[in-house]
């Protein structure tokens, strides 16, 4: 069997048409996961044994079980137990499941970055009269962001790739469309080749965004900073 380049060109647009669905799941889940992660990091500092035990269980659960199983559990399992979940669409279930899953990774990335900020920065903020929350908001999180960007972007790439399992809940995304076209034309190689190219380019684009963000967050390369240090060439 030979590689049919013409078929690739023909099938490319009809797979690409579902890229927005993939992107929508990825960005929606990514945003929700980020917000959840920040909450988790803040809650991590609350001195309550019960709360910490719950958080630990949450993180262990989502990092210790496969994402496909989690999605099935959420979509089919919970719907059986609680009727309200019956009306959940596959899309919503995928977004919820992927958000929860990604938040368990992202919160650890953020926590590591927060810990990398010198303790003196927090103390100085408190000594200046700021509240704990203000210290986090104005001093610790902005400094942690620089450290967190590479790992968070990796987490996001992981999330973007795992959107491809959403088809198991009946969501019609890039992967689902590829699978369907492949199944009807028997040109599996060409179809999955297209899907691979699409996912690969997507990952590369996110990497470029990461580099740009890292540069933007680094105060040592900011214009004002450089302009004032006369010793710098």
């Amino acid at each position, binding site marked *: 069997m030979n590689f049919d380049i013409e078929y690739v060109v023909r099938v490319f647009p009809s797979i690409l048409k579902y890229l927005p669905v993939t992107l929508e799941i990825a960005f929606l889940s990514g945003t929700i996961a980020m917000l959840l992660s920040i909450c988790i990091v803040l809650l991590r500092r609350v001195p309550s044994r019960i709360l910490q035990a719950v958080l630990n269980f949450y993180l262990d659960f989502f990092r210790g079980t496969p994402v496909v199983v989690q999605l099935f559990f959420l979509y089919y399992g919970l719907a059986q137990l609680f009727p309200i979940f019956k009306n959940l669409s596959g899309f919503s279930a995928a977004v919820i499941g992927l958000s929860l899953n990604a938040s368990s990774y992202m919160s650890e990335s953020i926590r590591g970055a927060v810990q990398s900020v010198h303790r*003196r*920065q927090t103390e*100085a903020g408190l000594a*200046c*009269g700021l*509240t704990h929350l203000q210290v986090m908001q*104005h001093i610790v999180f*902005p400094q942690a962001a620089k450290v967190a960007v590479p790992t968070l972007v990796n987490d996001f790439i992981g999330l973007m790739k795992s959107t491809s399992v959403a088809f198991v809940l009946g969501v019609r995304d890039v992967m689902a469309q590829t699978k369907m076209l492949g199944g009807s034309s028997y040109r599996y190689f060409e179809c999955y080749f297209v899907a691979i190219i699409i996912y690969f380019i997507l990952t590369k684009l996110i990497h470029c965004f990461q580099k740009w963000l890292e540069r933007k967050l680094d105060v040592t390369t900011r214009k004002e*900073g450089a302009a*004032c240090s006369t010793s710098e060439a």
Partner: protein
Amino acid sequence: MLDIRGLNKQFGGLHVLHDVDLSVKKGEVVSIIGPSGTGKSTLLRCINFLEVPTSGTITIDGLTISPEHCTKQEIYQLRHKSAMIFQDHSLFENKTVLENIALPLWTAYGYTKAAAREKAESILEMIGLADKRSAYPYALSGGQQQRVGIGRAIAIEPKVMLFDEPTSALDPSLVEEVLELIRTLALKHATMLIVTHEMNFARNVSDRVIFMNHGSIVESGPPEEIFLHPSDPETQAFVQKSVHRGGPLVL
């Protein structure tokens, strides 16, 4: 202005501060000297509750709080009455020099952002760093960083300023500019509590010198007394050793 009564601090089983009593009057400059590990930093950090004392009371400007029953709100109120200057790494690294001084003003002291910037500008004039207003801390010398730290403290108009070895982390050539600024503040009758290893500076700038050892105040008195005629043998030994190490005492 500042009144500390029966202050104790334990870290687990380690008893670091033993029944410390200390009063500082308005406009008074008090230096604390003593060997390493004696609890000087811990004492300062208890004053603004960066460390929560085990027992005792802290009073600043009429506000008394004790660790047994104090609310978060009271701790914030207490912190609003003092400012601390650390050894190093205390400028907000993600903020410019100007923002470092302005940030506490508009976040914690009720200034508008514009008023905070204006005040920060005038502080920068005063500490002679107006041309560095948009520089980030990494681009400043250690001495300049400390001056900004002091400027940030001045800006909030604290009732008492707490200095924890403000020159210990500095290159010897940069120490003088920082000490000079602290001297200026002393002349303006700022109330200051200064932990320092600079014996000559302590002798010149202070109204009173306190010698601490093993978590207690051993001796307290005018600089001449502590440095020239200490009554306690421990003080004697420490002063002699420090003077020997740091060169002759300038009188």
